[in-house]
């Protein structure tokens, strides 16, 4: 079959990214031809500022070298500007007569700087700031001339001004508004920014209106004149007063344009379905995006459509801003100005150069503007995108969460302050230098890409915030423009919540049914979605949906923890951490008989036998004769207790018995993630109940219940939940909370994250205020657990495939 022809007009980041996505999924579908007006292969336009500032070289910012085009058989026309699209004959052509026929046309012509329509705008030495040629002209001017004027105190203008100043010029910035970056900052933050840039040597003329550019005898600009008649000297004038989508070509072909080339959710122009547009030239739902992450999202969707998959829709992006001037930290997102109907929380410390403003409307964060300390930017952006109610965290909101865990990166929380050799990811041993190098060398833009290539932040995730900061500094991307809704994995566009909802609402009871109903893209999922779906099915429809062992991670399939050498560990259950001489004797005998190399006491008051061969597992379980500890499962693990009033002279309650009762009531309970309880007999809290999913603390008059604590990556003290009188109440309230979490938690979401997502108030409303619902949840959990097998003994009932323990020959 003859291949279809795809022509790309515009050899820039958005267009080429679309091609890359397309080649990934349909490498042989099209003969591809690319036209670029610039004489360069695709480079990272965002990094022109660091090039201007002398921090990077032009070679370093090339994203796709010429060899890339060659490798993929792409015909590349550099330095050729298309000036005509003949839609009837499906032909594009340049002034020099070069032409190309297309079956599909992709327009990615980007945008141009807005040139102020003032006298003198065509003089020598007046340039825009857009491409490599402009950057080179500026670098060249800096070696010959002294006075530079930048018109426009927005993102681009300030980056240009900073770069020229670093190259030794005296730079004045003319800005029509009364503070800098008024599109991204409020007046206070804009003021702080101005002061810190002034301290570096930039001059500002705010509220100034340019009237004319005055030329000298040599035809080169020599001064800028204002409305009030005053003048300042200028040997170089850089226009950076905004950009306009390049739509002239599309318009001349009769394609509908309004603030950009109008496209639908599959990035097709509304005029001609053979023609697509992506990037800064495209207007999607009235918005032309100028930041890289939305453009890449568009590229991805466009590619799937070009590949005739017909999946995926682009539904718009929320964006955040970050200035690429080294040493200046600012961040803004959403409606940061506030106004009628909004509330503001403001923290201002002008002396230290820190300013933070959060804008709240209808109990949701709708905007944030940070200057000087932007560590929490990504957290605020997340809250903003998710639209989470913030009443319960309002008092802490300003102080941030810092989405950076406590451990694993030497306590750093500001990436910029770290040395190249400092470790960012303690799990995988990845240094700051290695991450930055990968971002530059491989052209990475998103967290997912960095995770894939470097493994940083790919294991425990505690350094995610740091990695995001590095992406921001290095690639200059708006690092967190991930869509509001996150797909479970590459097999689907649906989020965890959507899948949960569909399984429940449509009464889906098998993985095949879920795949069918939600149009899964892969025949049998992947290692990410299968365990999640399996959990959702069995937790939504207990006794109905059948557990699928092949969709469980190996630990849950073999009911033991795999170790680095392929052996397993066995942790039997010890109710409440209590054991007997008989149990210990059986354990000791098994250790001898099966030559188990290591015996270790765990942090959860149990005993761990490490290095058991897979073949020996069933026999070890049988010999030990104790129930499964589920230490390998997303399930109830330990219930840690202190000795309590039975022995302790301080004890007020029988915490050991309470712990055993809780454990017996809820063991075999699978959950979105592992679950740990603890019960202490008095407020001295020797069982460390404050960092458990449910912590119970005995007091003289009853029990205090704490929930959603965590002792892991991010130490999080549990929240006080309620005070209870009897042991029966402790069981009911704990069970009800667990069942709520089991029904609503996303797979691999610990209670700490679940509660932070839905809010503590929400959980209180369900469990404390609604007694009937609480009793119903507790009854549901008991029903689900009733008759559940012990997988170490009831193999058939637990669906344990014994063949896995034997080898074949």
């Amino acid at each position, binding site marked *: 079959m003859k291949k279809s022809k795809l022509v790309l007009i515009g050899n820039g980041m958005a267009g080429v990214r679309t091609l890359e996505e397309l080649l990934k999924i349909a490498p042989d579908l099209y003969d591809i031809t690319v036209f670029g007006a610039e004489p360069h292969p695709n480079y990272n336009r965002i990094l022109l500022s660091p090039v201007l500032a002398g921090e990077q070289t032009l070679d370093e910012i090339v994203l796709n070298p010429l060899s890339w085009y060659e490798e993929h058989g792409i015909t590349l026309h550099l330095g050729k500007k298309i000036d005509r699209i003949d839609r009837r004959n499906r032909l594009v052509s340049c002034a020099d007569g070069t032409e190309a026929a297309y079956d599909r046309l992709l327009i990615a012509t980007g945008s141009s700087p807005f040139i102020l329509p003032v006298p003198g705008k065509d003089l020598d030495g007046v340039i825009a700031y857009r491409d490599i040629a402009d950057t080179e002209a500026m670098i060249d001017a800096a070696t010959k001339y002294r006075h530079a004027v930048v018109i426009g105190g927005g993102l681009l203008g300030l980056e240009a001004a900073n770069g020229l100043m670093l190259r030794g010029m005296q730079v004045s910035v003319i800005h029509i508004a009364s503070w800098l970056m008024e599109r991204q900052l409020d007046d206070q933050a804009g003021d702080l920014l101005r002061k810190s840039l002034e301290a570096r040597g930039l001059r500002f003329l705010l509220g100034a209106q340019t009237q004319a550019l005055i030329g000298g005898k040599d035809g080169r600009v020599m001064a800028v004149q204002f409305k009030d008649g005053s003048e300042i000297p200028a040997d170089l004038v850089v226009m950076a007063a905004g950009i306009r989508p390049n739509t002239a070509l599309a318009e001349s072909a009769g394609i509908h344009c309004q603030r950009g080339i109008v496209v639908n959710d599959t990035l097709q122009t509304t005029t001609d379905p053979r023609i697509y547009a992506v990037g800064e030239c495209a207007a999607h739902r009235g918005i032309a995006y100028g930041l890289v992450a939305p453009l890449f999202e568009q590229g991805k969707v466009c590619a799937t459509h070009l590949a005739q998959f017909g999946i995926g829709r682009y539904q718009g992006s929320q964006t955040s801003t970050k200035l690429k001037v080294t040493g200046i930290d600012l961040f803004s997102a959403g409606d940061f100005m506030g106004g009628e109907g909004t509330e503001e929380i403001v923290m201002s410390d002008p002396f230290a150069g820190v300013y933070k403003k959060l804008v709240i409307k209808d109990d949701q964060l709708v905007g944030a503007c940070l200057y000087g300390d932007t560590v929490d930017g990504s957290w605020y952006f997340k809250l903003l995108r998710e639209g989470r109610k913030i009443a319960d965290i309002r008092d802490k909101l300003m102080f941030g969460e810092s989405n950076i865990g406590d451990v694993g990166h030497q306590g750093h929380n500001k990436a910029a302050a770290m040395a190249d050799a400092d470790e960012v990811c303690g799990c995988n041993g990845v240094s700051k230098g290695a991450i930055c190098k990968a971002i530059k060398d491989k052209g990475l833009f998103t967290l997912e890409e960095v995770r894939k290539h470097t493994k940083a932040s790919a294991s425990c995730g505690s350094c995610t915030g740091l990695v995001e900061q590095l992406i921001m500094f290095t690639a200059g991307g708006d690092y967190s423009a991930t869509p509001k809704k996150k797909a479970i994995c590459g097999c689907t566009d649906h989020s965890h919540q959507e899948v949960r909802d569909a399984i429940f609402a449509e009464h889906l009871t098998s993985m095949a049914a879920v795949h069918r109903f939600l149009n899964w893209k892969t025949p049998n999922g992947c290692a990410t979605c299968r365990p999640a779906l399996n959990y959702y099915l069995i937790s939504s429809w207990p006794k109905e949906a059948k557990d699928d*062992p092949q969709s469980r991670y190996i630990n849950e399939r073999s009911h033991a923890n795999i170790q*680095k050498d*392929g052996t397993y560990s066995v942790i039997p259950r010890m109710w409440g951490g209590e054991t007997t001489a008989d149990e210990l004797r059986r354990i000791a005998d098994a250790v001898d008989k099966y030559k188990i190399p290591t015996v270790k006491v765990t942090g959860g008051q149990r005993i761990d036998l490490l290095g058991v061969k897979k073949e020996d597992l069933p026999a070890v379980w049988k010999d030990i004769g104790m129930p499964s500890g589920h230490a390998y499962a997303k399930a109830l693990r330990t219930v840690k207790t202190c000795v309590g009033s039975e022995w302790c002279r301080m004890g007020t309650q029988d915490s050991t018995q309470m712990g055993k009762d809780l454990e017996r009531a809820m063991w075999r309970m699978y959950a979105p993630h592992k679950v740990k309880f603890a019960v202490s007999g008095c407020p001295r809290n020797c069982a460390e109940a404050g960092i458990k999913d449910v912590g119970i603390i005995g007091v003289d008059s009853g029990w205090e219940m704490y929930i959603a604590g965590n002792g892991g990556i991010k130490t999080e003290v549990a929240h006080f939940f309620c005070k209870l009188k009897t042991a029966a109440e402790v069981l009911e309230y704990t069970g009800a909370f667990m069942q709520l979490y089991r029904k609503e938690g996303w797979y691999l979401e610990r209670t700490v994250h679940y509660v932070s997502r839905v809010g503590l108030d929400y959980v209180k409303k369900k469990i404390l205020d609604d007694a009937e619902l609480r009793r119903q949840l507790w009854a549901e959990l008991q029903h689900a657990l009733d008759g559940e097998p012990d997988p170490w003994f009831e193999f058939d009932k637990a669906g344990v495939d014994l063949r896995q323990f034997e080898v*074949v020959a």
Partner: protein
Amino acid sequence: MSEWKTVCQLEDIPVLGSRRVQRPLGPQVAVFRTADDRVFALLDRCPHKGGPLSQGIVFGESVACPLHNWTIALDSGQAAAPDEGCTAKFSVRVEEGCVLLNQYELDTIGIGLLPVVAGPCTRVG
């Protein structure tokens, strides 16, 4: 060279699962069965840190290593990009419900590899 050895029946391998083939020498061989009953065999060692691929989740024509989640292609043993590495593959025949591996390959491929070790034997001093 062309001797083939029956290692098990197709039915002995769970769908989207695997079995381990013991050899007199060298690491075990993992045989995998896909959803549409195709069978592949790889050396039971991930090219990354030697994890036992037989214990991974099988999906499509790939298996995810249980240790660090590398994705390995069943037909070639190649790690999915951007990870780099390859594990040895074995020829497989399925005849009348029997799964056969090539005896010569069983006798030779990966025989010299040292086992992955953990635990007290790795302690220094």
